[in-house]
């Protein structure tokens, strides 16, 4: 595929994302006419008065921004971790991140009265801690099979601890809170909640994009990468650190959201081929669009709120099955 057509594909995906974002602002229990969007954006009065502006700026935009950011972060992290593992079946959660985050949230819910700050801080710290533990136990990730297996060990240990906390949790309030947290969701996102995830994620995503060419070389294997001038050990360390920091910063706020990080890099490779310099950008656009659509369904399909993890699973699993059937026939691209 020529560079020009790759760029066109990425531009189309970006335009589609913007269209979905614009639609998302209008959709919801309080519908806003598309024609009013421009008026609100330019600060003019609409028929709905201040109420509409309030809904757009205080309720919908923060949520749309967070859903887009989380989608882009999960997709970018997935692409990067797949390069580390030289394996297209890997998600950013693979070495203990999601289990560590869930354990942190469980401790926050059960022992810290469900304080938002405690949940977020503990989820973030334990997510990062779980990944670092797997990384150091495995001997700095020099053998990715070891890294994967230590990830499995960390994940199941954390899950046992979560099980214990669930057993002791108060079934009236704590248990449902924990269950909902582990299914993820963007309800209650306010503009103040965006600050840290945005700062961390933008820096990490930019850095990962700058490493994307080296990721191509890394997929050749550590030894060959080194003879082609790429310090494989150091590159893997930075990819794992950057991916973990940004994914943890988002999901410690939103809860666990599966499937985005696994499916979107695949779809990007099917569309563009394996060159990570392009894949990582397209995956970010697709991940943002995917999670935004899922969140629109979560908040508009019923009068209440459907946990987003359920929706990404319902959409993601069949998509992934389709990718696998295709891979059986013609490989991973």
């Amino acid at each position, binding site marked *: 595929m020529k560079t020009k057509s790759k760029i066109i594909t990425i531009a189309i995906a970006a335009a589609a994302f913007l269209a979905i974002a614009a639609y998302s602002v209008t959709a919801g229990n309080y519908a806003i006419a598309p024609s009013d969007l421009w008026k609100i954006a330019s600060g003019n009065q609409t028929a709905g008065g201040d109420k509409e502006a309030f809904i757009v700026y205080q309720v919908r935009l923060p949520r749309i921004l967070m859903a887009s950011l989380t989608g882009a972060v999960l997709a970018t992290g997935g692409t990067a971790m797949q390069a580390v593992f*030289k*394996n*297209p079946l890997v998600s950013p959660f693979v070495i203990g991140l999601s289990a560590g985050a869930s354990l942190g949230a469980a401790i926050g819910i059960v022992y810290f009265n469900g304080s938002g700050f405690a949940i977020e801080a503990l989820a973030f710290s334990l997510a990062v801690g779980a990944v670092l533990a797997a990384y150091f136990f495995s001997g700095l990730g020099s053998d990715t099979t070891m890294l994967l297996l230590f990830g499995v060990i960390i994940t199941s240990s954390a899950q046992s601890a979560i099980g214990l906390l669930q057993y002791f949790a108060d079934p009236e309030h704590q248990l449902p809170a924990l269950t909902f947290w582990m299914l993820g969701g963007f309800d209650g996102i306010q503009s103040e909640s965006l600050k840290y995830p945005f700062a961390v994620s933008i820096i990490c995503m930019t850095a990962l994009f*700058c*490493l*994307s*060419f*080296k990721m*191509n*070389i890394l*997929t*050749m*294997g550590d*030894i*060959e990468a*080194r*003879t*082609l*001038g*790429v*310090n494989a050990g150091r590159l893997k360390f930075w990819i794992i650190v950057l991916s973990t920091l940004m994914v943890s910063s988002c999901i410690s706020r939103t809860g666990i959201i599966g499937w985005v990080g696994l499916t979107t890099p695949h779809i990007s*490779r099917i569309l563009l*081929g*394996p*060159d990570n*310099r392009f894949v990582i950008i397209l995956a970010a656009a697709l991940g943002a669009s995917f999670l935004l659509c899922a969140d629109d369904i979560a908040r508009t399909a019923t009068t209440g709120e459907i946990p987003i993890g359920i929706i990404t699973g319902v959409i993601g699993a069949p998509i992934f099955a389709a990718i696998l059937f295709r891979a059986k026939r013609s*490989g*991973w*691209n």
Partner: protein
Amino acid sequence: MDMNKNYNGKAAIRIENLAFGYGKPDREAGRRQGIFENMSLEMFPGQAISVLGPNGSGKSTLIHLICGLLKPLAGSVLLAGNDIAGMRSHDIAKIVSFVPQEHRTAFGFSVREIIEMGRAPFQNFMGFGAECGDGISTIAERLEIGDYLDLDYTKLSGGERKRVLLARALAQDTPIMVFDEPEAHLDIRLQHKFLRHVLELASSENRLCIFSAHSPNLALRYSTRALLLGGGRESIIFGATEEIVTPKNLGRIYGVEFETVTRESGRKLLGVK
């Protein structure tokens, strides 16, 4: 691909008192089980050097040490006078290229993209600048993979992949080229073609080419110097191929008796008795 490139000096390798071993330290000796001990030798531009030895004698280990992929237990490998232990992968890759025995990847890069990766050490961090450009077709034609440039590398046969990896090393265009068992995965015609190519890279382009091999006859035919490993960890046999690859020496390192057969063409062949 500049035939008149002056690789003198740059392509010299000096190995000084090199020691390497695997596994736990030997309790009595207080050090690791050695494969090499006190190995010292020099290699120069224009030489094609074959490395022979039985399984486990350290052929691949030596090759990895020369590429800076392993750290010696003692001693040093000097590339153009610099200790490789203190060099960054990025700088080593400008001097030494490596063609592995076999290679698989899950990601379907095109043959062109794989060959282009050979330019990585000379490019910026995003892979721009110093591209091969049209040079890629020339290299690919020479290796009979000109028609494969846009194909998916993962769909090729072992022998085709091997030639793509050689093409990548040619694109890397380094004064020192190292090959791990170049004969593996190739049919007889391609084995000879591949190794003739290696010999030419040394003799007419003045590079230093080092390859490990199982066949003494390929070593005899396509290397100017030979290094025999496996005759005891403190003794290596190194010198002009004709003088080194003899029934006596081979018998000593492999532990089977060899004999020389002279073919009608006058060429000598070595075989197991």
